[in-house]
Each structure stands twice: as structure tokens, then as C-alpha cells.
């Protein structure tokens, strides 16, 4: 445990907030405003990278900023789990910042300053959550993310936007107040502290804690983090898709939903711990429970013809993979789950970026209208195809790595049912992603598009969008080929638990 200087950790959460402020005061000059947003993104990522070597060498950085009550404080702490999430989110923000410029200018959207301010602030909140050293700090940043993303969801300020926003805020605040707050109070009463345990095995609860209390408080947390999109509290996510596509891409595929998943994983590993979850059977329960979401959301995705809606349900399904992996409680399972945070992020943001470009340059939202689009937008649809393969889990794209480890995890606990769930859901993934790709390259164009062959990717604004999505697609491929670096990050979370990974990545 290393007590760091105060500036080091909070810097990463502060930079996006400062960027948001600078964006706000330069609202009248669009070029300056967007420059701040890009600069903020780059600096945020740089500050995470700057901290990475120390974390990888096995240190846990920690600093307490304010002590509220005994055991409750604003504490930041960086370990492997936080590093994976923070690194992924901040890197993707850089690409998304460029993408936003193309999208918002391409559509000539209103209230762009508010958009950029909230966008930056949301990333700042997510950074804070990634660095949270105790439940209170996690809750604090979790709620900040809820608040600042509301204006983004209702951005269009029409009937649909307000309805989506209302649903969003009601789901998130109801669950966090009703379940999360109660769960926190119960943990505080039982353990006397909200500080996360180090490592993933022991957790906070004293060994004599009653079983009922453990189960009830665990369920409160499972449902309290509604951002993770577990059914039955997933419904806000499809509704939130009324937001502009960059929001859906960075926030509702990466930052916001991953805050939910990350928080749940954090609570499972650092509050309850592998041993307690194993002993109480809650691990297996969670695995079965999220399996329902995995299958069910995929089935719903099959029925959607709006591209963003299909992606939204795919996200609901994929998020539960992460929790499934953690719930397996074996080294391979947890690794598969955590590495999927990054893998899903890169692939899904690619898919959303593609959906946004298609909408901006052609105005199409419905999959049935996208026939022949692949020839007019080769880069976009090529990236879409690559990311789809990743979602399905085809080697060598990165989704394969996660699914492989998840499958190994199910075999480690000899559970054929969960293995079947994984395989069936992969088939369903193929069932709803491949038709889009096939339609784009082999489908018939709409009658009014007949004969149009000019490329749609040549305008400057389109390039702002196509280049980032090409990069994220390429990253998906690279991570599939070289996943070891991520294993290294995960292994430092608890070198005792992840012995296999530690040995395998010792040279890195």
C-alpha cells in the first residue's frame, strides 16, 4: 500500500472536469471549444498512462481526500481493475472527441456547448468511479455520472428525448436510492467501514455475519447498480438511445454502462470477496441470473430493425458477460469477464460509430434500408463487419479472447449449463449481426438509392468520423492478437489469486 501525493490520483478525475469548464467558457468559439475537449481527452489518457507503470509493478496507490465519518471517506485508489476501466474509457474518449466534431457539425446539432460540457464531465465522473477507494466514493461518482449524462440523453428536447431522459433518471435514481443506499448502510453497520478490501479473496464482512444479511445486501448491490443493465432494470438503456450517437457510443456502450458493470464487479470482488461468494453460493446464483439477461436480450435484439436499438440490446447482453465472468469466481472466469470490459468497449464503440456515420451521411436508421451501403461506405461497413466478428467471438478478433476465457471458466467449475448459455448466445450474436453485414454488402438498395454509387465517406466531416472508427476496429483486432498486456494488468489485482496469469505474463 502506497500513500501517494494528493495530486496524482485526483488529477485524472479533475482533468475532464477542468476540460468541461474550459469548454463551457469558450462556448462562443466552436474551434477553441472542441480543441479543449480533445486536449482534455489526451491529457486524461496521458495521466492514466503515467500512473500505469507503478500499478503494474504491484503498487496500490491510495490517497484520502476527506474523512466524513469513521470508515467513510473520499478516497481514491488505483489498482488493476480500475486501471483497465480508466485506461479504456480515457483512450476511447480521445477518438470519440474527434468523432463528436464530425457528428455534431455534420448534423448541425443545437446546444453543442452543453453537449461537450456534459460529455467531458461524464468521463470525469467515470474516472473517479474507476479510482474509487471505497463504496462511498464509488457511489459519489456513480451519482455524478447519472446527473451529468441526463442532459445528453434528452439532448434533442423533443417528446421522445424527454421521455427517454425521464426513464433514464427514474431507473437510475430509484435503484441507487432504494437499493444502493440501503446496501451501503447495511455494509457499514456490519463491517464498520466502507473501504474496499485489497485483493479479491477476503472482502469486508466479518466471518460471523449472518447469511440472510449477506444475501440481502448482495442483492441490493446487484440491482442497485442499474447502469450495468441487468434485467429487469435494463429498460433505461434502449430508451437512452434517443441521445445523439456519440453519446450512445462512448457513454452507453463504454463509460456509463461500464461504470455500472465495473461497480458491480468491484463490489463482488472487493466488498464480498471470492471466498464469501463461493461459500454462500451467490456466485453461481449471479451467473445463472445474468445468463437470463444474456439470452433474453439477444433474443430481443433479433427482433429490432432499428440499428441503434439492436446495438442497445446487444450491449445489455454483452454487459452481462462481464458479470458472468466475475461470478464464475475462478481465475479464468474473472479474467475473461474483466478483459471483456476492454474488448466489448472497443468493438461496441466501433459499431455505434458506424451507426452514427451511416445516419449522418445517409440519414438511415433502419437496417432494412441499408442494402448496398457497403459499397458506398467501404471503410465503415468493413469496420462494422470486423467489430461484429468480435462480438460473435470469432478468432482472431478480441471478443474471442474474452469468450475463450469465459468458456474455460465455466469448465473450471464443471458447469455445462453456463457453457451452453455462452454457445447459444454466440449463435444469437451471429444471428443479429451477420444479417446487417450481409445486407450492407449483398442486399438490394432501396429504390430511391438505385444507381447511386458515389462514396459517402469523402466529405471532411465524414472523415472525422471514419478515421476514429477505423482505429477502434483495428484496435479490436490487435487486442485479439496481443491480449497479454491486459492479462498483466488484471494479474496485479491479486497476484495470489491470478497465479497462472502472473506466471504467464511475468516477462512483460
Amino acid at each position: 500500500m502506497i500513500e501517494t501525493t494528493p495530486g496524482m490520483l485526483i488529477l485524472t478525475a479533475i482533468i475532464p472536469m477542468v476540460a468541461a469548464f474550459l469548454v463551457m467558457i469558450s462556448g462562443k468559439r466552436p474551434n477553441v471549444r472542441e480543441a479543449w475537449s480533445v486536449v482534455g481527452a489526451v491529457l486524461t489518457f496521458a495521466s492514466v498512462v503515467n500512473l500505469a507503470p507503478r500499478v503494474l509493478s504491484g503498487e496500490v496507490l491510495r490517497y484520502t481526500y476527506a474523512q466524513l465519518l469513521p470508515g467513510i471517506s473520499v478516497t481514491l485508489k488505483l489498482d488493476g481493475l480500475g486501471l483497465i476501466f480508466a485506461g479504456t474509457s480515457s483512450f476511447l474518449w480521445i477518438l470519440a472527441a474527434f468523432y463528436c466534431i464530425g457528428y455534431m457539425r455534420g448534423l448541425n446539432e443545437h446546444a453543442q456547448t452543453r453537449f461537450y460540457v456534459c460529455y467531458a464531465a461524464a468521463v470525469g465522473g467515470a474516472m473517479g468511479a474507476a479510482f474509487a477507494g471505497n463504496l462511498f466514493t464509488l457511489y459519489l461518482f456513480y451519482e455524478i455520472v447519472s446527473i451529468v449524462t441526463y442532459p445528453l440523453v434528452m439532448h434533442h428536447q423533443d417528446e421522445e428525448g424527454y421521455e427517454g431522459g425521464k426513464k433514464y433518471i427514474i431507473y437510475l435514481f430509484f435503484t441507487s436510492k432504494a437499493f444502493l443506499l440501503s446496501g451501503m448502510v447495511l455494509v457499514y453497520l456490519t463491517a464498520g467501514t466502507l473501504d474496499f478490501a485489497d485483493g479479491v479473496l477476503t472482502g469486508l464482512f466479518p466471518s460471523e455475519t449472518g447469511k440472510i444479511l449477506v444475501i440481502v445486501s448482495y442483492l441490493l448491490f446487484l440491482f442497485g447498480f442499474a447502469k450495468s443493465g441487468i434485467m429487469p432494470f435494463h429498460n433505461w438503456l434502449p430508451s437512452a438511445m434517443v441521445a445523439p450517437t456519440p453519446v450512445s457510443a462512448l457513454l452507453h456502450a463504454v463509460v456509463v454502462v461500464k461504470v455500472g458493470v465495473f461497480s458491480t464487479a468491484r463490489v463482488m470482488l472487493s466488498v464480498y470477496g471470492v471466498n464469501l461468494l463461493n461459500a454462500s453460493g451467490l456466485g453461481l446464483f449471479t451467473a445463472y441470473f445474468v445468463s437470463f439477461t444474456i439470452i433474453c436480450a439477444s433474443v430481443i435484439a433479433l427482433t429490432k430493425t432499428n440499428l441503434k436499438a439492436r446495438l442497445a440490446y446487444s450491449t445489455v447482453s454483452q454487459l452481462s458477460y462481464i458479470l458472468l465472468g466475475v461470478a464464475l469466481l475462478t481465475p479464468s472466469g474473472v479474467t475473461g469477464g474483466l478483459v471483456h470490459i476492454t474488448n466489448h468497449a472497443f468493438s461496441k464503440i466501433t459499431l455505434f460509430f458506424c451507426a452514427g456515420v451511416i445516419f449522418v451521411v445517409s440519414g438511415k436508421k433502419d437496417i432494412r434500408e441499408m442494402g448496398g451501403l457497403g459499397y458506398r461506405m467501404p471503410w465503415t461497413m468493413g469496420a462494422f463487419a470486423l467489430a461484429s466478428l468480435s462480438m460473435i467471438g470469432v478468432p482472431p478478433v478480441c471478443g474471442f479472447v474474452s469468450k475463450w476465457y469465459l468458456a474455460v471458466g465455466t469448465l473450471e467449475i464443471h458447469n455445462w449449463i453456463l457453457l451452453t448459455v455462452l454457445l447459444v448466445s454466440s449463435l444469437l450474436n451471429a444471428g443479429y449481426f451477420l444479417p446487417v453485414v450481409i445486407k450492407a454488402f449483398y442486399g438490394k438498395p432501396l429504390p430511391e438509392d438505385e444507381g447511386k454509387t458515389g462514396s459517402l465517406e469523402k466529405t471532411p466531416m465524414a472523415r472525422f468520423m471514419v478515421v476514429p472508427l477505423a482505429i477502434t476496429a483495428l484496435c479490436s483486432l490487435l487486442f485479439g492478437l496481443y491480449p497479454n498486456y491486459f492479462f498483466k494488468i488484471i494479474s496485479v489485482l491479486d497476484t495470489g489469486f491470478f497465479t497462472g496469469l502472473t506466471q504467464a505474463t511475468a516477462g512483460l
Partner: protein
Amino acid sequence: METYLIANTLGYPILSTLLLLPLLGGLVVFFLKGEKMLKAWGLVVTTATAVLSLPLFTAFDRGTALYQFAEVSHWFPFLDLSYVVGVDGISVLLVLLTCFIMPLCVLCSWNYIKERHKEFICVILLMETAMIGVFVSLNLVLFFVFWEAMLVPMYLLIAVWGGERRDYASIKFFLYTLLGSVFLLVSIVAVYIKCGTFFIPALMDVVFSFGFQVWIFLAFTLAFAIKVPMFPLHTWLPAAHVEAPVAGSVILASILLKMGGYGFLRFCLPMAPAATLYFVPWLVALSLVSIVAGGYLALGQTDIKKLIAYSSVGHMGFVTLGIFLLSTSGIRGAMLQMINHGIVTGALFILVGIIYERTHSREIDDNKALGTLMPAYVTYLVLFSLASFGFPGTNSFVGEFLVLVAAFGQSNWVGAFAILGAILAAAYMLRLAQKMVWADSDGHGHSPEDDDQGHALWDLNLREFLTLGFLLVFVFWIGLNPKPLMNVMDTSITHLLEQVDEGRQQLDEGHHGAAHGLALVDEH
């Protein structure tokens, strides 16, 4: 008497100064002329009082539960009527709250009050004396005098500067509070007949018989439950709040309601501990009903002031819940919630006053979509709304969390009901903030050229900005560092719980207490 007191060692008689300064200031008002001068005088006097009250915080001895900064001067010794003032960890924070809210009341009425400036400043200053007097009096008669004295200026505030239904509201306020006062007076007399003293700290150490405790407990509780207000005695509050001028609402919400909570802590718990323990289930239940009913009623309001008034019922329910859970974290949480509610709800009423000055309407529908027109205003509105429903990092979170810890520690059902109140709080405050910032899909908002109602909108001026900014500092300061406040109250709370524990023994020994008679500890 002296065993309970620590004499004032500051260079000046601090509590008497705080009492006399506004009183004299209020009398001087009659020799002043001109609106500007009057307002400036009001500001100077209240600010001076606030500054002079600071040593109460800095020089307060955190290690003792005795009454500090005490001053004694005998008045009618044969009746034990003496001027005894002093503060302990429970009252000192409320005195400070009063002293610091009052300058803001003058500031927020700067343009709001259009007539009778002289009387207004006078009433505000007299009100301040009476309120400080309630918190510092250690003699029951003195307490009662201030308690009653408070009624008149408050009545005038509503009846003279109030809104359209001010007569109805002011009379209702007056009658409800007077009803409580009658019972208060009866129990004061009864206590005097039993013990022959009005000195409050001594009365706390008297062990009354259980039967007597029940009666004084019920009488005190009725008076304080009206003041808090606790369901079902809350109906005067929305009426009074809606009709009162902005300063009246702020005083009412920030300070007057706290007197109920203060009364429970000062009289009910220590003087009638056995009866308190006996009635605890009922009071916890009523507090829970207040929390849920207040929140539920607030959810349906279209008038902003009414919404905040009902939210006060819910928040004060948290306070009484914390008090009657009779645990350290509960009472700590209740005390913090009183301070927090004073700061946050005061700010919310100031915000309503500001928008009322501009649009002359308190309806949510008339004040929609202010986001682009009044950015500074809506920033404050959103921040104080978040603080109101206990957003982490703000002051209310700490208080609410402590009460919830006490509630879940008592029973999960109590906790679940309290959580329900917390959910409702988030719901109505977010609804209010959402509509005022953005409007909803069906309504159109204001636009800069929208002048059909004969009013223009302008953002906060410097005075308003600083008034709200001052309160916001405390929102985050207490939210992130509540320790200094808790250090002040902790010793007194521990002492209070010891007193309650004696009641537990009494209750265990003989439930009915009739055989015990009166074990009187005379301090003379």
C-alpha cells in the same frame, strides 16, 4: 445552580450581546429614515450579531456537556424567575445557524419588500432576539417568554407582507402554535409545582414518577410536534410558507422548525426519559409517516413553495426519526439534518423568492425552461436540489446517512420506510429541477422575447449570487468535512443518552411507577 454552568470567560457577555443587539437595533429603527438606510441598518445589525456569535464556535469547550458562556442574574428569586442563559453542544449550533441565516433574510428581502420597510426591519430584528432567546434560555419561564414572543413578529411577517391568503395563513399559524403553547405552559407550571424550580438543567436530573412523566411528555410533545411539524399536525406549514414573504419562509423553514427538534432534545428526552422510551414506537411510526407523507404530498404539488414546504415535513420527519431512535448516530444525524435543512431549505426558499420577483408566480408551469435564460440561477437551483435530497458529497447526505444507519440498526423495516422517503425526496426535487431548467415536452418555456406576461427575466445580480454562494459553501463544507460540527455536539449527545438510560432503568424497575412517588433532587 452553578454546578451545571461554566461562566462566560470571553471579553464580553456574548449571549446577552446576541440577545440585546438585535433588540436594541430593532428599537433604533424608529429613529431612522429612508428605505436604503433602513435596509443597510438591518444588514449591519444582523451581520454584527453573526460576527459576534463566532466565538461560540471557536471558544466552545468540546469536552464538556455543561452549559457554557453562562450568565446568571436573579430576577424574582422567590419565584425562581432568573435570567439564566447558556449553551451546550445541542443549542450552540442552532444559535449559530440563527445568527448566520438572519443577514441572509435581510439580503433576500432587499427588493422583495415594497412597503413598510421600517416595520419590516424592526420585526426581523425582534424575531432574531426571540429566536436566539429560545435556544439560549436555561430557565423555563424565560424560555416560554421567548417562545411566545416569537409568535408575534412571525404572525406580523405573514399577515402584513404575505400573499393573497395571508389572513387565513397567519391565523392558522397563530392558532396552531398557540395551541401547543398552552400545553407547554401547563407542563411548565406542573413541573414548578412538583419541584419548585424553573432551572432547566436541574429539572433534567430530577427523576419524576412515571405517571407524571407521561403527562409532561405528552404536553411537551404536542407543542413541539406542532412546531416541527409532525404528521398529522403539519397542515399549518404549507399555508404559512406559501403566504409568507421570502424572509418569513426562510426564517420559518431554517429556524422555527428547528425549535421543535430542539424541544424534543432539551425537554422530552432528559426530563421524561421513561415516558420517552414508553412512547418511542409511536413517535418513530409518526416520524416515518411524516417522511413518507411529506414526500408523497410534495410530489404532487404545482406550487414551488408548497412543494418545498411539504419537503420540509419529510425532512423534519428524518430529524424526529433520528431523535427517537435514541442512538448516538441517530441523534447526531438528527442534529446535522437540522443544520442542513436550515441551510438547504433556506436557500431553496431564497431561490423561489428570486424567481417570484421576476415572474410574479410560484407555479412550476409559469417558471419552466429557465436554463438558457438564467444560467447562474439554474446552477444554484440544481445544486441545492441535489443537496436537498442527500446527494453524496453534500451536507444532507451525511445527516441522512447517519439517520439511516440508526434506522437500519433498529430494524430493517424502519430503514426501508426511511429509504422510501429518500426515494420520494429524489423524485420530487429532480422533477422540480428538471421542469424549471428544461420544461417538459408539452410546455414551451420562456424565450427572451416572450414578454406576454409583462415581465422580463434577468439572471442573478451580485447580491443574490453572494447570498446563495455563502450557503453553498456550507453545503459542501459540511458535506465533506462534518467533523468540526460533530465534535461540538458529541459530548452533549453522549450525556443526553446517559440521561435517557436512567429512564430505561426506571422503566425496567416498575413499569407503572406509581409506587415510586417523587424522588426529588433539590439543587438548593
